């Protein structure tokens, strides 16, 4: 008993337990919904829960999606950790995809220069698209939720405009670019070594898992060091904990806020490059569809800690990939995962739920103890 108490007293364990319980509760609710609406609920839910690992290409879908989600999760974590509610990842992603895709298509450089240039440009444009709402917030106290959402729509319109009027091949009946030339595509993550040639071919044929996997790992490490091992990270966390204290402590809060938005944008821009050069290998209309707020749920599940973002990203990517499989295999639509997502956010962020549960448990225990005492007392009387 006491060891269990001791383990529960560790904050990280409690946090983990709370998130685990929230996800579990959301999944149970999801199952209840499936039960209510589906003719073959068991089949549907099985497809949902096991789908991503049932086939090789689905496994690939899961990992590809998770890379995007993890990059977005890092972007949101940095902003939310500083209590800056930037919802601009969608726009930053679109701009990143547009710029990197254009470079991949049109800049006549060899592979070794073209891909790094495209990635850097995506990060830069993400930085700029984050700098704008950051500046508006820091210097004009403009509500960042409104400004980032407006910038998302503006980015979408800019993306559509360039795609339709400049990038799409003339005369094409659909709104998409040509496929990128080989110099502009991200290569498969496994190098072409003789002893793994078979495996490499399999991954290359069935999945789009690219070297972005390694860049993602670097991004996680960078985000972690940035947040916990640099003066900027200290300032970011102080602004998030108490902005007045940060100001009195001599931190240039305006500069910090602007940088938080902009640095967060770098990661989202990279996610856009992943969409364009890794997953689709061409620019398509609505390239970010359905990804807009997904970074938020990842960051919330990871409690805005870059080290936990990959776990949350993989877990949530799994749910999303599972929902896709479920939609194809049954009569339940994939939007159910949005409902599950909302429930996870609510349950994880509701500060009072765990204390309330604890209260109920102690109250029960006390009531039971009280009842036991009562019966003891009665026995004595008798």
């Amino acid at each position: 008993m006491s060891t269990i108490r001791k383990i529960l007293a560790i904050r990280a364990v409690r946090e983990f337990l709370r998130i685990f319980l929230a996800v579990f509760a959301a999944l149970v609710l999801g199952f209840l919904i499936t039960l209510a609406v589906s003719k073959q609920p068991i089949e549907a839910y099985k497809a949902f829960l096991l789908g991503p690992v049932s086939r090789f290409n689905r496994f690939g879908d899961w990992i590809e999606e998770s890379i995007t989600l993890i990059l977005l999760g890092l972007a949101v974590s940095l902003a939310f950790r500083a209590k800056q509610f930037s919802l601009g990842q969608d726009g930053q992603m679109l701009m990143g995809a547009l710029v990197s895709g254009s470079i991949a298509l049109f800049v006549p450089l060899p592979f070794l220069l073209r891909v790094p240039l495209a990635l850097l440009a995506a990060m830069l444009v993400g930085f700029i698209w984050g700098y704008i709402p950051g500046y508006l917030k820091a210097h004009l106290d403009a509500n960042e939720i409104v400004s980032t959402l407006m910038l998302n729509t503006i980015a979408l319109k800019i993306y559509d405009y360039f795609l339709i009027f400049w990038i799409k091949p003339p005369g094409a009946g659909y709104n998409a670019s040509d496929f990128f030339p080989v110099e502009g595509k991200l290569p498969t993550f496994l190098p072409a070594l003789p002893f793994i040639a078979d495996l490499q071919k399999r991954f290359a044929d069935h999945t789009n898992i690219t070297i972005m996997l390694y860049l993602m790992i670097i991004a996680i490490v960078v985000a972690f060091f940035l947040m916990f091992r640099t003066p900027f990270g200290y300032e970011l966390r102080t602004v998030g904990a108490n902005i007045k204290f940060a100001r009195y402590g001599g931190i240039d809060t305006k500069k910090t806020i602007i940088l938080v938005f902009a640095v967060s944008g770098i990661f989202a821009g990279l996610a856009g490059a992943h969409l364009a050069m890794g997953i689709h290998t061409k620019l398509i209309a609505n390239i970010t569809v359905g990804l807009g707020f997904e970074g938020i749920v990842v960051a919330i599940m990871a409690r805005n800690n870059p080290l936990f973002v990959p776990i949350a990203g993989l877990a949530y990517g799994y749910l999303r990939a599972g929902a896709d499989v479920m939609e194809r295999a049954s009569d339940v639509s994939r939007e159910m995962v949005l409902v599950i997502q909302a429930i996870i956010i609510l349950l994880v962020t509701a500060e009072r739920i765990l204390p309330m549960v604890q209260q109920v448990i102690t109250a029960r225990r006390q009531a039971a103890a009280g009842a036991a005492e009562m019966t003891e007392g009665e026995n004595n009387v008798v």
Partner: protein
Amino acid sequence: MSFDHILKAIFSALFLANILRISTPLILPALGGLVTDLAGATNIALEGIMLVAAFTGVVVSAYTKSVTAGILCGILSGVLISALLAYFYLYLKTDVFLAGIAINIMATGGTIFLLYILTGDKGNSSKLASGMAPIVHIPLIKDIPFLGTVLSGHNIFTYAAFLLTWLVAIFLYRTPLGTHLRAAGENPEAAATLGIDVKQTQLIAFLMSGFLASLGGLNLSMAYLTLFQREMTAGRGFIALAAVYLGGRKPWGTLIAAMIFGFADALSNQLASLEIPSQLVQSIPYVVTIIALVVYALQKRAQLIERTRRFQERELAKSGGGATGS
């Protein structure tokens, strides 16, 4: 079409009527945003509330064949969603932004999910024969040449928007509850020491906000269009929030701000007939929103400077008077 034609079109009665029509689904949620904002909490779930109400209204009116039932159930559903948000924010201590985001996500996903179950279609509800809110032709005014076209023949929501702006203004500035609400938003600790139940007041604000945003949503699906489309609110809930700030957090200011957005939107529709790419024209309302945020911020700063200056002058005058007195 030439520029001349555009100018003529803009100053036509139809264009002005169009502004009223387009502004309505912004005015109503903006009023909702105003009430919660003054009560001290930003309701970013306006978007989700609108969506749920729009969906419920269409579905109920289709199945009961009663527009009234549709509207009433739509309002009820929106108020319930808002109450859910208030419960998480006020009683479970969830961050109001995160809870609002969650509600919006749930509304987007939930409406598409249910739409698919009911119609087998994920795009819109065209398979359901849903009702349409009545259109009002104002007697006498409708026969005046120019004014009649502008003012008469709108749906009930448009008139409700103006009426409700007036009512909200009276509520906020002429009733005890309205005063309490503003006090709770201005300084919750001070309000609490005066015996105001801050939580309860904020709860009422959220319920009102839900009511107003629901009307905005119903306007979209039962008057502006007569069907439900996935994500049909298209960011109006957020533009409404921007209107609150641009309007200086006052009811009539909010109404005017919402109509400025309506104007930008109507204008972009008109300009689309010029040889300007529609994507760029369509982004006008969003750029205007950002400019509006900046204008509001500058206004606020100017007010603050003005207030400090006046305060200093008064203090100086006082101390100056004191000096001559002694």
